């Protein structure tokens, strides 16, 4: 077991950071918006091979996860989780991207649909890969910091490529890994942004950062972000269904805490679009309900450890630690 990055991983991280340094702010025209999809970043990551790094020989889940996690620290949005972590694990052939992952009611607003070229639909019994016709999509205004849109009319699923029922579990597993990586990265950025603000903002003659009440809550946020990161990377490395469920559970159950505390310590500024905080917090807020939400992930965690409802005594062989 080794937590330090190896040479290849360090090179991947340095490479993606070099690209991201040019995407740390939004154009003035979008500065006060809800979200900004950075096509330039999307293009740069794709051109340099970071979005299909999981299909590259010698690379795998950890490298893909590191890219997703790092990209999620930027205030701009880019579709990367489904491309880098989900698609390589459910389809041998490349899937046109950006990708919109859909579960539940097809006609509700969906994350990334306005920019997507493909929708991957989890019907529960099958996984459908459907080309997205941009003319059939309307953008939906949302406080979530991702582009959201909905289909104008039900897409023709007869044209879908059907990946089969066996693909449902890996789709959910890797979507959970992807969301945990995105949550970890966005939480890290929101916490760092907030710590920086508390060091500058003065109140009653001291900076906010000097108050222990502020210390403790941001320290709690920090340990949550570290835990989500560690679980997400381990789940990406192992390709284990249980580990993906743990990562998603831990990420999604803690979103409210980190969102509330980071906004609280940015005070009134944090609820204005002039401040950048919402570009991170309302991305991880949007992930709270994905892939069944925290309850779904926690229930799957329980099923995987103790058997489904109605199961008999605990099968000790399923209960593993370490």
């Amino acid at each position, binding site marked *: *077991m080794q937590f330090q*990055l190896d040479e290849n991983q360090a090179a991947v991280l340095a490479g993606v950071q070099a690209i991201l340094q040019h995407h740390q702010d939004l154009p003035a025209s979008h500065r006060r918006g809800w979200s900004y999809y950075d096509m330039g970043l999307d293009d740069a990551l794709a051109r340099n091979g970071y979005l299909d790094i999981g299909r590259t020989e010698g690379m795998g889940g950890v490298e893909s996860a590191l890219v997703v996690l790092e990209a999620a620290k930027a205030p701009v949005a880019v579709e990367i989780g489904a491309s880098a972590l989900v698609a390589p694990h459910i389809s041998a052939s490349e899937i046109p991207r950006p990708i919109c992952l859909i579960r539940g009611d097809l006609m509700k607003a969906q994350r990334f649909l306005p920019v997507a070229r493909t929708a991957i639909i989890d019907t529960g019994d099958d996984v459908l890969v459907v080309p997205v016709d941009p003319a059939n999509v309307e953008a939906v205004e949302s406080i979530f910091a991702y582009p959201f849109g909905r289909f104008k009319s039900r897409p023709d699923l007869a044209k879908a490529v059907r990946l089969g029922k066996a693909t449902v579990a890996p789709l959910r597993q890797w979507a959970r890994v992807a969301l945990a990586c995105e949550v970890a990265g966005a939480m890290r950025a929101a916490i760092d942004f907030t710590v920086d603000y508390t*060091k500058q903002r003065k109140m009653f003659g*001291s900076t906010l950062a000097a108050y222990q009440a502020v210390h403790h809550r*941001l320290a709690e946020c920090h340990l949550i972000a570290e835990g989500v990161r560690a*679980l997400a990377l381990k789940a990406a490395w192992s390709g284990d269904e249980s580990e993906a469920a743990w990562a998603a559970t831990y990420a999604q*159950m803690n979103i409210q805490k980190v969102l509330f505390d980071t906004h609280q310590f940015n005070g009134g500024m944090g609820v204005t679009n002039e401040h950048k905080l919402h570009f991170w917090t309302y991305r991880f807020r949007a992930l709270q309900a994905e892939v069944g939400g925290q309850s779904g*992930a*926690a229930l799957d965690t329980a099923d995987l450890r103790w058997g489904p*409802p109605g199961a008999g005594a605990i099968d000790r062989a399923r209960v593993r630690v370490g």
Partner: protein
Amino acid sequence: MEFAWSQTHLDYRSRVSGFLEKELPEDWFETHQKGLGSKEQIDFSRDFCPKLADAGLLTPQWPKEYGGEGGEAWEQFILAEEVWRWGEPRGPQYMGVNWIGPTLMRFGTEDQKDRHLKGIASGKLVWSQGFSEPQAGTDLGAMQTKAEWNGQGYTVNGMKLWTSYSERADWIFLLARTGPERKQISVFLVDMKTPGVKVVPFPGLPEYGHLNEVYFDNVHIPASALLGEEHKGWDIMAFTLNFERVGLPRYIWGLRTLDIAVEQLKAEGRFDDPICRAAAGRIVARFEAATVLTYAVVDERINDIQGTVTPNVQRITAANGCLELMNFLMDYLPDCVAGGNNFLELFYRAQIASTIAAGAYEIQLDAIAQRGLGMPRGR
């Protein structure tokens, strides 16, 4: 970055679990239910730890010259996980093996090492820690117990509180004031049979054996009892607490306890409730986060990465898992602390003080804020 166990580590885990399965008696769990500080468990561990020592499984990470196996930190943690999976048959020995022993290796004289390390490595001696006092728990600098130079040695007067296992301990790792200034504190290695040392156990919410008062009434100890330099106890404590803060693998005990609770809920036909199942799933996620963060601490130790807050992050994450599990027990199996299930009660009562002992929860958060987030000292 990769998370695979090496074959050596897998083999080591099998060796430990195989030994425990073979050597622990059938009635071990009856002893275990009495509690870590109970007479039954301590008597048992005095017999069992020498067997572990003979098998090379008590101090695997210690250098060979001190009776260890010269192993690495991973082996210490794998061993800890496996023994906790079996309810920690070492009893209080983990304290001597994991914290006091390494501190003696770092700061002890050759005579002290010769005398004490062999005793710890044999598994026959029980140590306790004399740190806290009524007015000096988290704020150890406020301690009042004094050790005054009497021309030949030291005379100790004062009282320690919350000293786990001291009723049956052979030695105490004692912190005492040797000067009037706040940081003039020294560490002494004191034989519990020394005249003037008196232990008074008293009841409380934590499991039996954890709450003891230790009185020092004109206790004369030799100069050779001083560990390290006089007045430099603070440096020694920083070293010791660094080991202690990683602490025992609460995540293993927690997951094992949760399995026992789920087993009971299943037997009672109550574990199909999705609210209960999701609550249990969330606790698993907390303990698994603590697990991987613990491994990150071990990795930092092996790579000599110092000064990070990963140990603090790990400790709080594990404590949060314990708190949520305690709450789960009160939601679904409250009779566990009313004679309903001794295993669950043992966990519940042992964890009551887990956010206070070995660096209070808030002290850990201060460390994370200051050293991890670069925030100024709080007010």
